[in-house]
């Protein structure tokens, strides 16, 4: 991530947006789980807010520095376990989780193929009936400026349904608001 972008994701303004707009939108459509795999928390704005509601969070962050910061921040909290790992090759057994989530992160995964591999990998670590949910941002000129010099591969809301099905999910529920695309998908 470039510096301005990282600053935005770590800012109070972003945390407020997540709290006011993003999470309420998601949790009006999906139950709050007791145990969650969070993919790509970055600076952890979502992790902080989710932890208020969720007993145990396993956070997987591929950026070593961000993972180390997050692990340090939650060092005294047994309810948050941070792994520095690549979400296309998760260090967990099949069926370990009942719920997995990713918030405004998937556009940082550098190709459609890797995003699809990530979806399939999440499907692997979910048990049958488990749910993947989350959001990603919408593309646009302003969004591209923010990601100048960075990876920027936002999900296309119009192809996401098929991609989640191919990754092994069913009962796909998509919605689009200006704040992004929301996806809810179940492992059969």
């Amino acid at each position, binding site marked *: 991530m470039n510096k301005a972008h990282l600053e935005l994701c770590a800012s109070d303004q972003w945390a407020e947006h997540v709290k006011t707009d993003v999470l309420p939108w998601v949790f009006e459509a999906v139950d709050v789980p007791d145990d969650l795999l969070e993919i790509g928390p970055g600076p952890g704005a979502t992790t902080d807010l989710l932890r208020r509601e969720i007993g145990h969070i396993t956070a997987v962050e591929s950026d070593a520095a961000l993972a180390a910061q997050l692990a340090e921040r939650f060092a005294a909290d047994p309810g948050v376990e941070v792994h520095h790992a690549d979400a296309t090759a998760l260090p967990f057994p099949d069926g370990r989780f009942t719920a997995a989530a990713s918030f405004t992160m998937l556009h940082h995964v550098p190709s459609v193929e890797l995003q699809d591999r990530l979806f399939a990998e999440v499907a692997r670590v979910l048990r049958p009936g488990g749910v993947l949910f989350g959001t990603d941002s919408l*593309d646009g*000129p*302003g969004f591209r400026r923010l990601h100048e010099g960075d990876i920027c591969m936002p999900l296309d809301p119009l192809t996401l349904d098929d991609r989640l099905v191919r990754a092994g999910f069913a009962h796909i529920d998509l919605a*689009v608001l*200006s*704040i992004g*695309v929301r996806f809810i998908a179940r492992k059969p």
Partner: protein
Amino acid sequence: MSARVNESFSQLYTSPEFIESIDEEWMPWLLDGLDLGEHVLNLIAGPAFSVPALQKAATGQVTVAQLDQSSGDPVDPTRLPFPKDQFSAATAVVALHHIPSAELQDRALAELARVVRPGGIVAGLNPIDGPHFRRMNTDGASVPIDPLTFAGRLTRAGLVDVELTVWSFVRFAARVPEERP
């Protein structure tokens, strides 16, 4: 019927930031690769922010049809005052959501398909529902358009070759079939 553009939307549509992003970013994105032909109908609702960029890009004449009831002589988008096949293309740039129901929007799309000649283009931009949209839509007079179902609505309006791209605005472009059913 006519549309009602409230004060919040009017203020947005006349703000320099909005006009600049329409001119510099969104209109070029919309019009890229579209052949609008010699006579374009541009449906607008309220301030005419889309007109300069369209006039600049269009190779022919631009006819503007105003939907907003507070602007003098509005047209009824469900009964456009133009004969069949009058235009080579039609555009609706950040306008259709001011038509106050999905059913009336669908009738307006069918009307655009009627007044554009076979092979001509119907294209535009739609804003997306969300916190910002809801803050402006205090009177509920505006009905946002869901991008996930819009391709089907264009098809049902009689259009073909539907292209839809969901960015922070939704771009649509479709064609009146060479042979009308």
